[in-house]
């Protein structure tokens, strides 16, 4: 059938050209309200008179019914009726709230708090995890890692030669590019300075899809001579900080490691890859190294090629490489990592999700509190609502009327919360926490604002819903009869109790999270690192390439170390190629014939290797357990050109020695180092105790120490001092200046500071979650207190009666506290169940603590119960003080 049965006049009237009519009416209704009202009055009056003319006045009165209700109904159909009543209700709500500034301010304050926290966290979350990378079509970008799954290595940095082969042989990528982290000494501009550079294949920026903001990108011809290049691009931040953002920087020159580079461009800001200080290109050369895993490789997929098919394609390349270069590439494979994984580590991602969830919980708690507050107000407004409904306000209008208040509060809360976030976000960025990727890029952008608006509306509706749904069910007659002293219905009590339960349960979740993180952090801080961090100074000095070329590096190093060692107050000084805890982490596969024969473990261990000077162990406080430490006679493990193979000697850490030789004495035995790469054998001359080379979180590292030498230099130094290690910076700097005024003393820190810094992500998570937990607790206490004081206030008469009948003060107090504790206990149980269900998603952030840590759960339970008792104690005290005479007279 061809028609619409809804036949609704109002809707039909809105169609087509009638809109102008409708608009005219709207204009009339809004601008000449009084006239419209007068006319309606006159119309109804004439209707009544005509009825009277027909019959008796009583019949007329009966037929016309409630005049006000008719008028209300007519007003409701008028164009702009909603706008009209909206304004009226808003004015009324503002007036109502102004009469109760306490309620309003408390509600606004709580929501503002929640909003500030959630907006800041969301903007940080957005910048770190959601915001697209600053590259063209980032979905097509992947990072390519090497693997050696036959040796349980699932992520290794590609070697240079393998990169060139992947670039040439693959069929899936538009282009493949590589980068290599390095540090150079920049001279000729005041004090010598160590600069972090990224050596990139000339096509790297183009593959990423990044254009310099000034100047040009590298070209293939910049890198025709392999690594012998002479142009550089500056990173945005470094351009601003070191070169003052000079617009005419392109064409100027820099002196890096004693070579002159011409600046050809400046990169745009952003992370990752493009946040280094300087960039220089490198090009293909025939004798690229295949065994040394040092490069980062990225690829841009051809349009339409999936990661899966690219992986299959690279598998073919890998098989060919494995066959062609069995010595270095046996068992090689490739792993592809989509670019959305580049910015945040897995742990950071979990941490940010946890923080976001926590802040949403906090907001919900604030919301529940406001709902509670409004509910209490709604109860005392029942009379007003009853009058309105007697005057013909529809149910819908009443709900709107009640909602208006919560919406107003949530609006004000949101605005102040956003204002708070506006100031809080830069303050947090000022802290320059290295733990959150792209923190500096966090801003209150459109996404963040939409998040705020959505959560504001949700908050307003949520907070208003409970009171609103309650309002119209009020029976008019009974409410009016009872006047101000309505009884609190069983329903409402139950609702308010449920809100407290919810609040306590949510606080339980937050506090458990905070508790688990705090426990993890204290475990981490207590972790025995193996080396001594007290009174240790760590700094780095990188020698330029010319030192290697001229073979003067070792000579320099020896002089430098000797002069430091004789400084008064210096106990020991040693050099290492990578600084403990924060340095890079070169590794190798190591094996022994006894281990290989025992066949207990099939895969030979992967161990960190470190080049050290003889005194390193005493400088860093690692005790020698067996054998001897290196001396000047122990040669570098790398053969020098034109010289015979050296007699290689290594020192193992205890755990590695045990793994390779079980309980037999390893001294004098032989191990195979760089197994699967260069396969050299070496003699074990000593065993030192274990250490957390990679920092407190990663436990004892398997470490092989190899001696320094003419071609094995160290760039990091540890000095064991008497007294504050930082006092020695000046003397050491002047020693260095005398040796070579062009070498910078860089990255100077005490060892303790290094360890603390490595814990700063954990610290940050712990502190933030603890703050949220504390706020949640505060809000929950406010909620419990509010509900109880209100309900005790309502029960004054009853309590008065009890006291009059002989109830003791203690029993009244008990009554109050028990009433308060019921919903709290329920909340604790719910919270514990929820926390144990959720805490598993948390594992990545925990250290030395199980997600279901009984001590934490117990502590949170006790904390919540104790604060809840305290929160119900004060209303109870007040109830105890009720004077029966006064209470009953009020009745």
């Amino acid at each position, binding site marked *: 059938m061809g028609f619409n049965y809804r036949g609704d*006049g109002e809707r039909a009237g809105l169609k087509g050209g*009638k809109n102008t009519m409708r608009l005219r*009416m709207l204009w009339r209704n809004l601008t000449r309200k009084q006239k419209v009202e007068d*006319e309606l009055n006159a*119309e109804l009056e*004439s209707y009544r008179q*005509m009825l009277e003319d027909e019959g008796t006045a009583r019949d007329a009165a009966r037929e*016309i019914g409630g005049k006000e209700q008719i008028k209300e109904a007519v007003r409701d159909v008028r164009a702009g009726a909603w706008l009209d009543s909206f304004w009226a209700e808003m004015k009324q709500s503002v007036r109502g709230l102004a009469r109760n500034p306490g309620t309003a301010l408390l509600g606004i304050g709580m929501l503002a708090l929640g909003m500030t926290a959630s907006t800041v966290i969301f903007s940080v979350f957005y910048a770190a995890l959601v915001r697209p990378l600053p590259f063209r079509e980032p979905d097509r970008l992947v990072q390519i890692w090497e693997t050696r799954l036959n040796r349980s290595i699932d992520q290794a940095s590609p070697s240079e030669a393998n990169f060139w082969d992947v670039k040439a042989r693959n069929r899936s990528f538009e282009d493949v590019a590589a980068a290599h982290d390095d540090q150079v000494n920049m001279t000729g501009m005041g004090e010598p300075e160590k600069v972090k550079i990224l050596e990139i294949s000339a096509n790297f920026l183009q593959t990423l899809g990044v254009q310099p903001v000034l100047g040009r990108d590298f070209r293939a011809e910049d890198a025709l001579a392999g690594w012998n290049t002479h142009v550089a691009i500056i990173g945005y931040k470094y351009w601003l900080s070191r070169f003052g953002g000079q617009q005419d920087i392109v064409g100027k020159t820099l002196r890096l490691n004693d070579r002159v580079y011409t600046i050809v461009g400046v990169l745009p800001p952003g992370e990752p890859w493009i946040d280094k200080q300087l960039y220089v290109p490198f090009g293909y050369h025939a004798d690229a190294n295949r065994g040394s895993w040092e490069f980062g490789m990225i690829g841009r997929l051809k349009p339409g090629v999936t990661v899966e098919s690219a992986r299959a394609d690279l598998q073919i390349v890998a098989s060919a490489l494995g066959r062609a270069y069995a010595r270095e590439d046996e068992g090689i494979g490739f792993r592809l990592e989509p670019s959305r994984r580049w910015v945040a580590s897995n742990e950071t991602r979990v941490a940010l999700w946890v923080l976001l969830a926590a802040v949403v919980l906090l907001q919900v708690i604030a919301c529940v509190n406001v709902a509670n507050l409004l509910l209490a107000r709604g109860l005392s407004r029942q009379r007003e609502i009853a009058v309105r409904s007697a005057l013909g306000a529809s149910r819908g209008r009443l709900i709107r009327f009640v909602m208006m208040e919560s919406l107003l509060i949530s609006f004000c809360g949101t605005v102040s919360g956003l204002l708070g976030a506006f100031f809080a976000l830069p303050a947090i960025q000022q802290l320059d926490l290295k733990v959150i990727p792209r923190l500096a890029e966090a801003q209150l952008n459109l996404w963040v604002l939409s998040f705020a608006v959505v959560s504001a509306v949700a908050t307003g509706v949520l907070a208003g819903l409970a009171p609103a749904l309650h309002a119209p069910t009020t029976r008019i007659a009974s409410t009016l009869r009872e006047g101000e002293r309505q009884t609190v219905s069983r329903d409402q009590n139950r609702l308010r109790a449920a809100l407290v339960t919810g609040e306590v349960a949510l606080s339980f979740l937050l506090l458990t999270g905070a508790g688990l993180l705090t426990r993890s952090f204290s475990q981490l801080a207590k972790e025995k690192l193996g080396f001594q961090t007290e009174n240790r100074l760590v700094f780095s000095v990188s020698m330029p390439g010319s030192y290697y070329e001229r073979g003067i590096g070792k000579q320099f190093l020896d002089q430098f170390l000797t002069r430091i060692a004789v400084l008064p107050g210096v106990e020991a000084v040693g050099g290492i190629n990578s600084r403990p805890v924060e340095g890079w982490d070169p590794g190798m596969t190591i094996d022994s014939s006894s281990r290989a024969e025992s066949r207990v473990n099939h895969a030979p261990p992967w161990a960190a290797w470190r080049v050290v000077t003889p005194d390193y162990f005493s400088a860093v406080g690692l005790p020698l357990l067996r054998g001897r430490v290196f001396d000047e006679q122990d040669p570098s493990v790398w053969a020098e050109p034109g010289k015979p193979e050296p007699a290689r000697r290594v020192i193992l850490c205890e755990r590695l020695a045990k793994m390779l030789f079980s309980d037999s004495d390893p001294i004098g035995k032989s191990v195979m180092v760089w197994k699967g790469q260069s396969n050299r054998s070496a003699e074990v001359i000593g065993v030192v105790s274990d250490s957390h080379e990679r920092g407190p979180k990663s436990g004892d590292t398997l470490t092989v120490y190899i001696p320094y030498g003419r071609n094995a230099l160290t760039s990091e130094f540890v000095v064991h001092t008497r007294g504050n290690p930082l006092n020695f910076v000046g003397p050491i700097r002047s020693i260095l200046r005398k040796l070579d005024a062009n070498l910078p003393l860089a990255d100077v820190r005490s060892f303790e500071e290094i360890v603390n810094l490595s814990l700063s992500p954990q610290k940050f998570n712990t502190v933030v979650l603890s703050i949220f937990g504390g706020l949640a607790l505060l809000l929950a206490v406010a909620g419990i207190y509010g509900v109880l004081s209100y309900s005790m206030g309502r029960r004054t008469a009853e309590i008065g009666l009890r006291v009059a009948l002989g109830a003791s003060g203690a029993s009244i107090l008990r009554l109050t506290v028990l009433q308060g504790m019921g919903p709290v206990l329920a909340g604790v149980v719910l919270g514990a169940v929820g926390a144990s269900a959720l805490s598993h998603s948390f594992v990545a952030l925990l250290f030395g603590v199980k997600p279901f840590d009984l001590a934490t759960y117990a502590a949170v339970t006790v904390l919540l119960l104790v604060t809840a008792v305290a929160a119900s104690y004060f209303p109870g005290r007040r109830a105890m003080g009720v004077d029966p005479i006064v209470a009953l007279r009020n009745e």
Partner: protein
Amino acid sequence: MPPNTPLLQGTLDVLILKALAIDQMHGLGISRRIAQVTGGTFQVKPGSLFPALHRMEEAGWLASSWGESENNRRAKFYRLTKSGRKQLKERTEQWALITAAMASALG
């Protein structure tokens, strides 16, 4: 409202339109006319009548003006506009369809 027989959604509109088909009329007149033509089945109370009249006026189907009633009372008279007549025609056709369909369905 409630009339003796529950008004179907949209019924009131078409009854009012029909009542005004011949001549302009005031509120009470419309109410009486509807009672008369439906044989007393629909008693339109002012609580339904006035909102409907005002709504239809705002929709542009009715126009109103003040005049003298038969008893010399000042009264607000409603009359059909052009679009009101169109509405009446459409609605009448709709109702014919519905009643035929309902009759055959319930037959």
